């Protein structure tokens, strides 16, 4: 693929997926590192565009790249800061009756932070509106396994906020 072709393809993809990548950066990086992670995701997608074989849609493929980049980033960041994931107990400390928009965002951010990296990936796929089939394909697990995982997360959320 020539550089102008690649750039055009990347531009189109970015147009459609920028918000999703921003969401992944939001979920896996500290506030100060989000732009860096977003840039890293863009770089990985750019560098690997040639590898896209058309077995899934380009958007699903890019989501997979973005999620893998986010998870790898998180692991490196954990090593750097030695700050491990917050314990599940923190969920109980969060406000449970967010009514306004700001509260909803805060609850979402906190709930995501409280989840393990794997559960966070499952929830992100759900929040971004991917179908169960696409989400399972991104994760490399069966649809049933994805649903079970999502069900557990939903229960956990409802216990804390409903």
């Amino acid at each position: 693929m020539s550089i102008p072709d690649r750039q055009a393809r990347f531009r189109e993809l970015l147009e459609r997926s920028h918000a999703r990548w921003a969401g992944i950066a939001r979920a896996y990086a500290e506030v100060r590192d989000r732009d860096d992670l977003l840039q890293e995701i863009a770089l990985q997608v750019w560098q690997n565009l040639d590898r896209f074989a058309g077995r899934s849609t380009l958007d699903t493929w890019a989501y997979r790249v973005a999620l893998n980049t986010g998870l790898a980033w998180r692991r490196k960041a954990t090593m750097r800061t030695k700050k491990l994931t917050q314990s599940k107990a923190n969920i109980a400390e969060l406000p449970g009756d967010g009514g306004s928009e700001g509260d909803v965002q805060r609850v979402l951010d906190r709930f995501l932070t409280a989840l393990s990296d794997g559960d966070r990936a499952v929830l992100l796929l759900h929040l971004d509106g991917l179908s169960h089939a696409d989400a399972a394909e991104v994760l490399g697990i069966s649809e049933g396994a994805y649903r079970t995982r999502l069900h557990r997360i939903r229960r956990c959320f409802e216990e804390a906020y409903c």
Partner: protein
Amino acid sequence: MRLEELGNEWRAMNEIAATKEQREQLIVATCRRVDRISGQIFRRDICETIAAVFVMIFFGRYCYVAPAERILSKIGAGFLVCWALFIISRLHRTRTIQKPASIDAPVREFCRIELDRLERQIQLQRSVLSWYLAPCMVGVNTFFIGLAGFGIASLVYCIVTLLLAWGIDALNRRAVAKGLVPLRNELASLLTQFDEAVARIEGTPGRSSNA
């Protein structure tokens, strides 16, 4: 508040964060980083090759021009030339055969391949004494003894180089314990989360058919 209701909120929140200006900036920054990374990899490869070529030329030339009675130091120099060749080939093999996991693999697969690669990396770094330091020590000490003869100077030189090797090995083991092992544990834990989900489904009769 229900989880189902939060999807729209989440997407709206990220749409706001992803403006057209930011997209343009991201494209520019990505193009710049692609150029920079290619340059870094090229420089690293060049530096390693120059170091190896220097060792090979210096000690290779010695092997060739040194008088015949310096047989021991010639053996040491020859050993070091072979060692440099071996290190270059081993590093090259590590980079080409043990490639990082493809970033566009499914997440579970990506984690598994990364974990395998990390395990191999840990093994490689833990055994650095046997494949990297020890042959080098044998080479430099044989070379030095060949030049200085058996005596107090050679003994001191041997002790100093052994201490140096021990120090490098200790630093290396520390780096593995502090950096790679926690990373491996983190990755193994993530993989377990996905594998558990799959095992739960496969171990529950009747549910896998629904999937």
